């Protein structure tokens, strides 16, 4: 699904400056776009806006041919549950649930059955080398493994839109390669619209689709 931002500005209540100013960009279906920029330049803010978790102060957002930023919260939640996979800047896992249950939760909320959700979750954990950790809780795995659990959770519902906010922050370069490849595959093979925010200059250079934010 194509995502289009037109004249997007966001000003947090109480903040002195705008976190994002008049940004216009089109994120194409089946491509991975890297959003880069210094800390505080508004990368996370942009992702939250596009994922319908924030409402822009100005401008509009289109998902495909739907104008989404004016929708009611219920519809925005439903769209997010249906279409969006999100890898948050911090893993944001449920500390009281196993890796498998953490991944499954996103499937449940999207409306998948328990069996569908658990089957897909196990496959993904296996694929990213943490199948053996499926029964472990986030407090019992390494930071990099937690990050991969978060990646699996974003992929479990086979989303058509994927946001990843610093998804490789905690990973060594081999593990980071696996994650980047998975995100690129989601774009090229599944046709998802993938938007990744990162500071990683090395990797940013190699990517064809880029959006640079300046503070």
């Amino acid at each position, binding site marked *: 699904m194509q995502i289009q931002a037109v004249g997007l500005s966001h000003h947090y209540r109480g903040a002195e400056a705008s976190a994002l100013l008049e940004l216009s960009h089109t994120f194409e279906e089946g491509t991975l776009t890297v959003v880069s920029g210094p800390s505080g330049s508004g990368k*996370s803010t942009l992702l*939250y806006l596009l*994922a319908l*978790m*924030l409402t822009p102060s100005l401008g509009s957002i289109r998902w495909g041919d739907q104008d989404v930023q004016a929708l009611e*919260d*219920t519809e925005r*939640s*439903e*769209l*997010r*549950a*249906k279409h*969006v996979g*999100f890898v*948050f*800047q*911090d893993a*944001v*896992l*449920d500390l*009281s*649930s196993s890796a498998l*249950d953490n991944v499954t*939760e*996103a499937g*449940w*909320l*999207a*409306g*998948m*059955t*328990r069996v569908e959700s658990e089957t897909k979750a196990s496959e993904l954990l296996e694929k990213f080398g943490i199948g053996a950790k499926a029964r472990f809780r986030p407090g019992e795995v390494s930071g990099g493994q937690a990050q991969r659990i978060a990646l699996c*959770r974003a992929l479990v*519902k086979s989303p058509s839109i994927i946001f990843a906010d610093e998804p490789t922050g905690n990973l060594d370069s081999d593990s980071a390669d696996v994650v980047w490849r998975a995100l690129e595959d989601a774009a090229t093979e599944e046709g998802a619209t993938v938007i990744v925010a990162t500071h990683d200059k090395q990797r940013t250079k190699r990517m064809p689709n880029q959006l640079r934010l300046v503070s």
Partner: protein
Amino acid sequence: MNSGHPRPGYFFVDAIHRLRSPLVPTVVAVFVAFAGTLSIFATTGVAIASQQRTIDLINSAEGRLITISDPQGDAGLSERSITAIKSISGVDWVLGVSPAHDFVNSALPGGTSVPVRNFFGDLPAPISTGHPGVLGPGQALAGPGVARKLGLADGVGAIENRTEKAVIVGSFSASSPLTSLNSGVIMRPNSDTGARLLRFWVSVEDVAQLQPVAAAVSKALVVEKPGGIQIKLSPDLARLSGDVVTGLRQDAALTITGLLFAVAVLIGALQFGRVASTAKDIGRRRALGASRSVIVAQVLINAGLTGLIGAIAGVLVGLVLSVVIAGQLPGFGFSAAVAVLMVLASLIGAIAPAIRAARLDPVRILRVP
């Protein structure tokens, strides 16, 4: 293609999981509902049970009795009154007795004398006798131990006084409200001597009918000097029984309302704390696509479940308590109503925290590592 709406199974699995973690608010919430339910039982349930016994007592034989007497003995109260009274609707039984006269064992002229009363009407339920069939004229029954007092070894035999003779053919035992007869002998009169009645007792079927039946009885009396007759009933009993019930309802309603309110407030405070301590989970679910109504539902399900568990435990212990303290079980309706109200109180208390939870901003929550 996913629907974007979680299936019911999710709510179930999640609700069970969230009872265990965090565990402390669950334990406290269950305890609050349990203590609330138990308090209702300990106060109202036990009161209802014991006051039910009071009502039963009021409605007992003593409470349903009208006593018609002729204290001076000169009013000329005729036994023909009995037939008239028997036909009044609401009358359970009528028994008339004459003044007592002393009789002795015919075989022992100098022996101990006992009081003998003529009775009129059929022997009512409170008088039980081993003697089969109806007593004929001059036949009599002795109260418990009375035959031995007269020196009648077999419990039967002739008795007499200066003017009359009678034959004791068996014994009787009278229960409330006729126990005063137990100390003597009751006999069927020898002949229609135009006997004057000293008093008779009318028992009504229901305490509520006491007043109207008493009015009908006083009209039906066959008497020479109506002014000499005294009619005693327990006019206050019917009213008292009504008062007890109304008073009880008001007291109970007040106690229950107070307790439910307290439970709702405590559960509310508890759920606010639980929402604050699980904000991270709520924000995560919202970010993953849970709508506000899903969050509200999850908080309410948690409150309802803890309320239900506490209420069921409270009812079970409360029932045992009622039996131990009041010796009586409150009805099923009462127990079920208490449990339902307790769940409702928990739900109502959780409404504000649930709305608060639904309004949490997921972005702010996600930004805090």
